[in-house]
């Protein structure tokens, strides 16, 4: 019973071993040049020191939402493409399914375009 979970233990060990190994190896063999910028906390390139209640540009969120539209498209297109040949032999329904999905996303794209999300200035 518990033996069935042995592979999971191996995966854990492998993951931990890889993480520790990679970190340790760079520590031992990697060259180190310390600059002020490199030692600062990593905050996606934004200066991490300052008032905590700073305002974020709304563009961050808009880009996030636009990203979802294009990203979701690809996420669903890949598995669809994998089974396309097999399913298309039974009829064109699989094609219409994806076309409908793309049209709905296209409407979302049209919406953000008309709302002026792409106007950067």
């Amino acid at each position: 019973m518990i033996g069935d979970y042995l592979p999971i233990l191996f995966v854990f060990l492998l993951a931990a071993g890889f993480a520790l190994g990679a970190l340790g190896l760079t520590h031992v063999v990697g060259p180190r040049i310390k600059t002020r910028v490199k030692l600062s906390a990593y905050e996606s390139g934004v200066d991490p020191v300052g008032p905590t209640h700073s305002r974020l540009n709304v563009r961050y969120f808009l880009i996030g939402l636009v990203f979802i539209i294009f990203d979701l498209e690809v996420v669903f297109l890949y598995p669809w493409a994998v089974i396309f040949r097999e399913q298309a032999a039974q009829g064109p329904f699989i094609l219409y399914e994806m076309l409908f999905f793309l049209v709905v996303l296209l409407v979302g794209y049209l919406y953000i375009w008309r709302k002026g999300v792409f106007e950067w200035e």
Partner: protein
Amino acid sequence: MSNFDSLAYFLPELALTVLIVSLVLASVLLKSDRDRIVWIISLAGLAVTAVLLAIQPATDQSIFMGALAVDPYSRFFKWIFLVATAVIIIASPYTKQLDGSQRHEYYLFLIAVMFGLFLMASSLDLIIVYLSIEIVSIGSFILAGFLKDDPRSNESSLKYVIYGALSSGVMLYGLSLLFGMAGSTNVFEVQAALVVLPEKAHLTLAVALLLILVGFGYKISMVPFHFWTPDVYEGAPTTITAYLSVAPKAAGFALALRILGTAFGSTGDLNIGDWSPVPGLAFGSVIAIFAALTMTVGNFLAIQQNSVKRLLAYSSIAHAGYMLMAAVILNGQAFGAIMFYLAIYLCMNLGAFLVTIFVHNRFGYDEIDDWKGFGFQAPLIAVPMGIFLFSLTGLPPTAGFIGKVYLFSVLIEAGQYWWLALVGILNSVVSLYYYARIIKVMFLDGEPTDETVTGHPVMTGLILMLTVPVLLFGIYWTPLMGAVQSSLKFFTQGM
């Protein structure tokens, strides 16, 4: 049924999808008069959906490979959602509170929420359960915060998001426990696995039920998961408050009764009338405690309220408690009583909220004391309000009385949980106090005047129209009960 064949049974939902997409297009492409044109498109789309729902063919198979049911039970609830959405959309242009907001996007979100409600009523799969609740929630979050310039509306939206995220997270954990015990997300396969569950797993089963009840309880505002209700109801635009207190609550009951009844039932068949939980689960006692808490807390907090909107919010918690009372037994009779009550609750609660909108439009106030003399100024509106409030209390000869009789008779005929019926009756007496207080302020306080107040004829017409079923079903309720009885047919795997 395969995905392609399922489409023929999915036409009402497809019509709503097309409607949503065309509303998005209309709201960005139209140059002028957007609010009015989008309003007309929405109503036309709802009419098409209603026709498609009426002619929807019957099937004894589930659609989309076991994901959704097309049965009379779900169809009954879909009619409730259609009526509620239509009333709210018709009333919205005449709500002054919404002036200055982008009404065309507001209709879009209402229709999107309604699409989610349709899925909630017919879901048969734990993934669809979660997905449909989220579709409804996300739309409701936006609608609650629709008055962008009103800090209270913003606050209500944010509170709603935080509570919604927390409770759906907890529910998801409960659903994952069910999946862990059954190895499937299909409710019928979950049920088959739970019946033969070894005794040592019974504690896990109880934990799973409690965690799932957090999510379902949040949707129907069951105590102790009700904390969001008063704040959200108070801050949201009144039309949305009316909608949230009726439609998602009905959907929450539809979903909870079907999923809990099927997954935790000793047989997966809800058609046989009798119901008992899977071995090792004290289902009735758990629901009974929640029901007693819900009505008592809702009623006693409603007493202290001075804002009519907040009072109706607490009273809607209490009404969820009355309906949960019947869910303790969960036989065919209980299903019927809850569905009957929800249909009546739709009319009386929407009516009471529409009157609140009317008063707000005309006078711009919300405190009970400000309603002084309203009965003399606008008898055409105040008398229906009196009828709605009497019906909410459950006094004869209104439909609310008949609804409550059916709810109580479930417990009394089952001969169990006498204490719960007693708690329910005492609570009805408590509720008389705060409902009658509004009536007293309207008709007894203040001086008779010759000054009359009239609103837009559409609002007056809607309010009077909602009075008809509340009075009619209080005297002659056979047609509604007949509709409920014929809707008590559930999809089962064996059918």
